[in-house]
């Protein structure tokens, strides 16, 4: 048997803890459920520690379906970090969900597990089943507040578009299998290397990319994002933005670079056009939004456009930039959404109007939104700026100047609509000026997240070097 347990030990730990939450939920009174989130956070932490200890162990196992390389390890750490932050956010949000059930935490941990499987997928079959696994957990999580019609609508829309997108993906995979006779990425790369691109390969590639755009929320499967971001419980919105998008990009990187890298000249235009359209749509449609979660949904469509620039570049610089962007994006999203959750718990509203004069009511929340939103917009000296800079540099280096121009223009557009919110928070007078209470742990966490965003912007050297070294793995032959 080709089974090397050392390689997938972190996954086993996460599985065990997910089942532990399920069992503990039965034994606990409904008031004590917050400790379930703690079990999940501890489990994720142990998994991260195991990854750190075993950082030298690399290889392919489970009959070529599971790969543990630097890219997989990077994304697994990213997903576990996301999972911890989302679990924390979820237990802050718990009271707002009527008829709350403890399975919420278990499902979040299972979604993290699915993302870890995706990061390690080395074959279209394991990619597809892991993707479906992730999708099913997210469908359930998106409509968890089932008393609210917006949440049910979110879940249903997510399910229907998701099913359609995975139909596209599966259809594309069959074409690629037909054209190459294999589903394993490296074998596909071997077969197509140096051959003419047949129509079957082109159609398969196109359909697979279209199917995967659902996960990253870019054109043509972007329509679901605004409704679902607005309707889903806020921690899940953050999870979709930070986790699901990163999962989409790790598989796009594997499919486009490892399997189909040798025919890049044939797909670079296709990806660039998707990227440019997504940038234009996401950033321009974000401008008139009245609800902060909805605005962040459009902004996250815009982010998918930026990240696709890295795919179009298909270089070490580009994929390193994608990883760095996702890393900074996680901190910006975590900070902003934690602030939104705390604000919602106190005020019961997500409307941008409600944020008027927030700086006078809670300086820490205002500062978090300030740093987080400006990092998303890409303002120096924050992490988001460096990430966008690297992505634009990567496409310029590959000669896609027009795409870089679109990227720069849309960064300015993003600054405009985020600054509108910030103006409202800092310059306008609040209608009510009772201070918003922020607990000590929340404060500490918000300070930590803001510092990370600042550090990534001011002193990015070690991090960028690290991700560039990791990105090198994708292009070794």
């Amino acid at each position, binding site marked *: *048997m080709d089974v090397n347990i050392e390689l997938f030990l972190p996954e086993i730990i996460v599985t065990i803890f997910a089942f532990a939450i*399920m069992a503990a939920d039965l034994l606990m009174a*409904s008031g004590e459920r917050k400790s379930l989130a703690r079990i999940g956070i501890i489990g994720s932490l142990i998994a991260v520690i195991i990854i750190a200890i075993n950082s030298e162990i690399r290889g392919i196992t*489970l*009959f070529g*379906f*599971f790969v543990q390389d630097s890219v997989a390890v990077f994304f697994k750490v990213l997903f576990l970090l996301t999972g911890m932050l989302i679990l924390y956010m979820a237990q802050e949000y718990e009271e707002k969900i009527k*008829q709350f*059930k403890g*399975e919420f935490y*278990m*499902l979040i941990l*299972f979604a993290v*597990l*699915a993302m870890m*499987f995706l990061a390690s997928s080395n074959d279209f*079959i*394991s990619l597809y*089943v*892991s993707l*479906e*696994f992730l999708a*099913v*957990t997210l*469908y*359930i999580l998106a*409509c*968890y507040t*089932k008393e609210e019609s917006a949440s049910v609508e979110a879940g249903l829309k997510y399910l229907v578009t998701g099913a359609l997108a995975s139909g596209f993906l599966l259809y594309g995979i069959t074409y690629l*299998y*037909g*054209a*190459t*006779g*294999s589903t394993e990425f490296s074998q596909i790369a071997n*077969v197509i290397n140096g051959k003419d691109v*047949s*129509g*079957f390969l*082109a*159609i398969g590639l196109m359909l697979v990319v279209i199917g995967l755009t659902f996960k990253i929320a870019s054109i043509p499967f972007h329509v679901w994002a605004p409704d679902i971001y607005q309707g889903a419980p806020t921690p899940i919105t953050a999870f979709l933005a930070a986790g699901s998008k990163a999962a989409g990009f790790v598989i796009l990187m594997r499919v486009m670079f490892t399997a189909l890298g040798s025919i890049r000249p044939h797909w670079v235009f296709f990806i660039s056009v998707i990227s440019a359209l997504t940038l234009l749509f996401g950033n321009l449609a974000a401008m008139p939004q009245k609800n902060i979660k909805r605005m962040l949904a459009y902004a996250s469509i815009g982010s998918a456009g930026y990240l696709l620039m890295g795919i179009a570049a298909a270089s070490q610089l580009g994929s390193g930039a994608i990883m760095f962007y996702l890393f900074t994006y996680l901190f910006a999203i975590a900070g902003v959404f934690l602030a939104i959750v705390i604000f919602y718990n106190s005020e019961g509203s997500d409307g941008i109007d409600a944020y008027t004069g927030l700086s006078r009511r809670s300086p820490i929340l205002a500062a978090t939104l300030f740093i987080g939103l400006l990092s998303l917009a890409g303002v120096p000296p924050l992490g988001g700026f460096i990430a966008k800079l690297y992505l634009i540099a990567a496409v310029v280096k590959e000669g896609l100047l027009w795409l870089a121009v679109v990227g720069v223009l849309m960064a300015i557009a993003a600054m405009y609509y985020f600054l509108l919110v910030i103006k409202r928070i800092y310059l306008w007078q609040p209608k009510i000026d009772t201070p918003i209470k922020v607990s000590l742990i929340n404060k500490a966490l918000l300070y930590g997240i803001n510092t990370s965003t600042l550090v990534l912007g001011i002193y990015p050297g070690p991090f960028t070097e690290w991700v560039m070294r990791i990105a090198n793995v994708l292009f070794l032959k």
Partner: protein
Amino acid sequence: MEKLFFLIFAVIAIVSAIGVVSLRNPVHSAISLMVCFLQVAALFILLRSPFLAAVQVFIYVGAVVVLFLFAVMVLDLGKERFGGYLHHQRPIALVVVIGFVFVMGFTILHGSLDAPLGNYTEEALVKNTEIMGKLLFTKYVFPFEVVSFLLLIALIGAIVLAMKEKR
């Protein structure tokens, strides 16, 4: 001969699939779906996969469609009334679908498949189920386990979403 049968099954499958989405009575839709699934099972036979064909009949025709019919019966659904929710999507959808069919048809007619085809030995046909079972628990064990996670989550999710907690 095989091509003739393929065409018969494929055409019936497509016609009944169109029936599923265009018939207004849910019972007719479900029966149309059953016809479609049976044709797909027949196509699996043509592809020398008796196991998949049997599973298709057992699970889809035997369980899923019967469950649909039960749900329709219990819930007493009338004719569907979704028509009112479709605004101006029809012409756009038509253009996209025709374009898609055109592109697919063009590639299929002009493309060539040079990948090696699977070799069907007599053994693979006779011991189909046995070979499938062995492969699922050896080579394909990882996807198989992931699917079992998926099914578990789907089960839990269905209960969580349907259950009302007593206070």
